[in-house]
């Protein structure tokens, strides 16, 4: 057993007489052969006796009675006013607790951010397309339908017209120039004429069919 182990683990217990017989023998064997530890042991013994000499004087019965009375009077008082929530929070909020609380919150935020980003990039565009159709987009759709119908192969066009012509050619649809507002394609009248022209072309093709 080396000096460090003797000093740290056994010497104070040895001074206090707390060691088992086998440990006590080990320490005594070491002390018999090690001058440095023997001196150290002597110093610890002297410090232990020096410490014992530091006594606190008994303040006397009057003091004890007074102390007891003070304790009773304090516990008999009403409880102090309820602490304010921020005071409780201040007491509670030690650095250790702050770290323990903030860590999971940060982790959740770190997980939520990519999830939100993924949602934004994949779904929000679709959602806005489905739910918020602008006047401009509606106008565009009409023009595209017209164009598409004009170019459609004859056999397909015939089938389509059988099912959908009531919508495309109905006077109500023809009279919807307001949907073309904001397209920058011209005045209402011009747009109306353009659409009518398209539908005339379509009617001509239908006639050909």
């Amino acid at each position, binding site marked *: 057993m080396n000096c460090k182990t003797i000093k740290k683990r056994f010497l104070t217990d040895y001074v206090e007489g707390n060691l088992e017989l086998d440990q006590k023998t080990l320490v005594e064997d070491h002390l018999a052969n090690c001058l440095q530890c023997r001196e150290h042991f002597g110093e610890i013994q002297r410090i*232990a006796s020096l410490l014992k000499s530091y006594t606190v004087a008994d303040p006397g019965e009057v003091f004890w009675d007074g102390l007891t009375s003070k304790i009773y009077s304090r516990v008999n008082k009403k409880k102090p006013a309820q602490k304010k929530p921020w005071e409780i929070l201040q007491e509670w909020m030690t650095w250790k607790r702050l770290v323990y609380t903030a860590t999971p919150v940060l982790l959740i935020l770190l997980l939520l951010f990519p999830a939100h980003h993924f949602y934004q990039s994949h779904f929000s565009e679709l959602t806005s397309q489905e739910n918020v159709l602008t006047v401009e987009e509606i106008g565009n759709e009409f023009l595209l339908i017209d164009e598409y119908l004009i170019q459609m192969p004859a056999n397909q066009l015939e089938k389509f017209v059988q099912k959908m012509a009531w919508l495309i050619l109905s006077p109500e649809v023809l009279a919807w120039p307001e949907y073309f507002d904001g397209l920058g394609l011209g005045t209402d009248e011009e747009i109306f004429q353009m659409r009518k022209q398209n539908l005339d072309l379509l009617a001509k093709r239908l006639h050909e069919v």
Partner: protein
Amino acid sequence: MNDLILVEKFKGGDRTAFKELVLKYQKEIYFLACRMVFNKEDAADVVQETFVQVFRKIHQFRSASTFKTWLYRVAINRCKNFLRVLKKNRELAPIENYAVTDPKDSQLDLLLKNERVDLIGETIEKLPKKQKAVLILRTYHELSYKEIAEIVGGSVNSAKVNFYHAIENIKRLVGK
């Protein structure tokens, strides 16, 4: 009467049981506080605060340890709180600031010869809080290391190591 019986009575609303506990332990707690805070008036305040705390928090005592150990833990915590507030007002020189010098036997002998026991109190005051608590509980209250570990927290070995370091630090400080 047994502490646990008194505690159970007190928990049941019997205030005379609390009085008995105060009378039984107030001296021990006062002497502990005197050495911890190194001032008699402050020690008396700490004793009052300790028992007020016991009165209010007795329902938190679960008999996992003895009442005495629990009471000492409350008292040590009150002392630490007190010292924390005190430190804000007057900064104590930390122990690391003292030069590491081995005491010569003659200086120690002189100290003993002159019976400068007041110096011991001042030296204990300069120890780090945990070492101070362990040293006082072991030397003056003769508690076992197991009890000390329960009071100050940590293992039995850590209590022993703290005691050893406290002795070493005192050796350095009185030799200065």
